[in-house]
C-alpha cells in the first residue's frame, strides 16, 4: 500500500492542489492528513471542504493545533500573526466546516505506525520535534515502530535503536529511504502550505508499506496566487512574504 502524508496545509489551496495532483501522478492508495488544515492561508473553506470530501472517500484526517484554535476561536499561546489568521479563519468557516474540524482526533495507529500532528508524548500539548532529544522522547512514548508527524514545517528524519540515543538525518527530496532494520523511525513531514526549510516548494510524504520506503516529496506550486489571496484577505503581509522564501 502506498500512503500519502499531507501535513500543515494551512489554508493554502494552490499548494494542496499541487500536492494532490502530484500524488495522483505517482500513484497513491491512501491519504493521511496530519493536521493543521487551516490557519495562515486564505483558503480555509476550500481546504476543509476538499479534505472533508476525501475523508468521506476513506482518507484519515487528524487534528492540528490551528484546527483546534479555529474551532474554539481561542488563540492561546500563538504569535500575533497566527492569532490574527485564526480569528479570520474562525469567521470564514461555516458551522458544518467547524463541526468537521471539531470531530477530528489528534492521533491514530495502523499496523506498526503511529500518526500524530505534533508528537507521541502528549498529542494535545502540541510539543515540537526539532532535535534528536525531542525525537527520542516521542519515540520512547510509543511502541509503534514508525511515527509520522508534522507541526514543525521542516522535513526531518530520526532513527533510534533500543539502547542508543536518536540520530538525525536530513532527508534529500525525492530519495526513497528504507525505514528498515532493528530500530524505530520518526518521520517529520514538511509543510504542504507553509514550508520553513528555506525551500518554498510544497512538501508531502509517500510511504510504501510493501517496500518499507519513505520518500520526502517536493512540488513547486503557484506561490503568487496563494500569496495574492493572503494580501486580498488583509491577513498579515508576512504570511504571504514567507511563502516565497520558505521560512
Amino acid at each position: 500500500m502506498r500512503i500519502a502524508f499531507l501535513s500543515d496545509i494551512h489554508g493554502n489551496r494552490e499548494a494542496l492542489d499541487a500536492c494532490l495532483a502530484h500524488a495522483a501522478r505517482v500513484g497513491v492508495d491512501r491519504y493521511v492528513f496530519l493536521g493543521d488544515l487551516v490557519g495562515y492561508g486564505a483558503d480555509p473553506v476550500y481546504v476543509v471542504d476538499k479534505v472533508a470530501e476525501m475523508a468521506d472517500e476513506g482518507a484519515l484526517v487528524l487534528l492540528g493545533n490551528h484546527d483546534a484554535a479555529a474551532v474554539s476561536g481561542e488563540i492561546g499561546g500563538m504569535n500575533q500573526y497566527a492569532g490574527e489568521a485564526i480569528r479570520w479563519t474562525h469567521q470564514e468557516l461555516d458551522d458544518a466546516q467547524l463541526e468537521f474540524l471539531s470531530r477530528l482526533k489528534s492521533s491514530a495507529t495502523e499496523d506498526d505506525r503511529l500518526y500524530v500532528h505534533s508528537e507521541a508524548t502528549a498529542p494535545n500539548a502540541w510539543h515540537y520535534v526539532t532535535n534528536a532529544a525531542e525525537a527520542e522522547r516521542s519515540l520512547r512514548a510509543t511502541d509503534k515502530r514508525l511515527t509520522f508527524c508534522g507541526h514543525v514545517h521542516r522535513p526531518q528524519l530520526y532513527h533510534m535503536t533500543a539502547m542508543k540515543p536518536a540520530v538525525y538525518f536530513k532527508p534529500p527530496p525525492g530519495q526513497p529511504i528504507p525505514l528498515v532494520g532493528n530500530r524505530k523511525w520518526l518521520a517529520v513531514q514538511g509543510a504542504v502550505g507553509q514550508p520553513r526549510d528555506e525551500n518554498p516548494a510544497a512538501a508531502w510524504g509517500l510511504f510504501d508499506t510493501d517496500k518499507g520506503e519513505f520518500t520526502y516529496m517536493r512540488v513547486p506550486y503557484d506561490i503568487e496566487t496563494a500569496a495574492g489571496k493572503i494580501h486580498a484577505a488583509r491577513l498579515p503581509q508576512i504570511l504571504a512574504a514567507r511563502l516565497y522564501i520558505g521560512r
Partner: protein
Amino acid sequence: MARQQLQTGSTLDGFLIGEKLHAGGMATLWRVTRPGIDIPIVMKVPTILDGDDATIIVGFEMEMMILPRLSGVHVPRCIAVKDFAQQPYIVMEYIQGHSLLKTLDEAPLPPDRVAEIGAKVAVALIDLHRQNVVHLDIKPSNIMMRDTGEAAFIDFGLSRHLSLPDLLEEEFRVPMGTGPYISPEQVLHNRSDVRSDIFSLGVLLYHFATRVRPWGLPKSSRALRRRLWRDPVPPRKLRPDIPPWLQEVILRCLEPDPTLRYPTAAQLAFDLQHPDEIRLTERATRMERAGFLPTLRRRMKAAALESHPREPGEQSTAAAPIVMAAVDLSEGMERLSAALRLEVARVLGSTPGVRLACVNVLRQNRIAMNYPRDEEGRNIHMRRLVELKEWARPLKLDQGAATFHVLEAADTAAALVEFATANHVDQVLICARASSNLRRFVGSVSSQVVAEAPCTVTVVRLPQGGETSAATTEIAAAITRT
C-alpha cells in the same frame, strides 16, 4: 525476535536451504534455491548471539539498506531481503569466480598484473561511486573476480550510501574498517568520502606489488593513526623492478590528505590503463621515507586534523570529470577546431579537477586493415601526436592535466565511442561540420557519437554563413550508465 533454526533441507519463504558455505563470526552463508530463479544464489543470515552484538546488527541493517539499491555487474544481484521482524536474511547472487584473497598468495605480482587488477577494481569503484555508495572496506577478501573478468564487491556492512542515513556514523566511537586498509579519514570518523576507497585500493596495490602491507597489521588505534603522518616505505625500495609509474600511482592513492589522491576512481583507472601517459612526480623516484623533520611537521598537521575532523560530504562523485576532446586535424578544419578549443577552455575554466583527453583518429583503409606498422606508419602517427599537442598548446594546460591519444581505426565514430566507454569519460566535445551533401549521404561522425556515447556529448558548430568564430553548442542527451 523469533528465530528459526536453519538447516540443510529446510525451507524459508520459499527458499530451499542447501549446503552451508561459510559460518563466521558475523554471518552464516547458505547456498539456496527457489523455483524461478535460474542463477546460483546464497542466503546470508546474521550471526546474532545472545549478547546481540550491535556491530553485527547495524552492519546487517546497512547491507539491507544498500544492497537492494545497487545494480550492475560489480555487485552481487540482490534477490530478497527480510527484516528483523522475523528471521533477518539477504538472498543474493552467488558470484562465480575467485576471491582476490587467493591471488594474494601469489604476491609479489608482476607490475602489469598489479595494474590490471587495480584497473579492474577501479572500474568497479567507478560504478559503485556513481550509485552514490562508498564501500569503506575495500580489501582482497571483499573483492571477487568473476569468471567473466569483472571485479565485484561483496559485504556492504561498513558501506555508506550518501543519500541515506548512516546507521554506523553515530553508533560507534571506534573507527570502522579493516586495520591494514582503513583510510586516514575513516580513522577520523569521516565516512562520506569516495576517496577513502581509493586509499584502500592503494594499500591493496602496494600489498600485491611488494607482498608487504604499507602499515603492517595495526593492532591498536594508536597504531592505526600512524598512517595520518607516516609515509610508507617506497615500493621500489622493496622491489626495484617496480616501474616508477606504478610507484607514482600507488603512492598517490596512499596520500594521507584525500585532496592529494586521485579525485575519482575513473582518473585512477585511466592512469592504470595508460601507464605511458602518467605524469611522474617526486613520488615516482622516491627511494626513502620522509626524514625526521618533514615527518614531525606532518605529525603536527595530523594532530590538528584530529582535533578538528573535516566536515563530511564535501566531495561529490560528480567532481573531477574526465573530458574528452575529439579533435579533427584535417585540412580546412582550422576554424572549427579553434571553436572546439574555445569550448574546451570554457569547460576547463568552469569545472575544477578536469582531466582532459585529447583524441584524434588516424583513419585506416578498411581494406588494408592489417598493413604493417612500418617506418612510414610510425611517422604519420608521431606527426599526428605532435599536431594534437600543438592544437592543445594555447590552452596552457598544466603538465599532467591532459593526455594525448592518436587512435588508428577504420571507423572514426566507433573508435571515439570505444575510447569514451573504455575510459569512463564523463563528457565528449566534438565538432560537427556544416551540413553538406556528403554528410547527408554517408552520415556524420558527430551524430553517431551523440547516439552511441555513454555520456554527455557537446557538439560544437560554426554559425552558418556568419563570419564570427564563436561556437554554437548543443548539449546532447546525457545517457548515464546503469
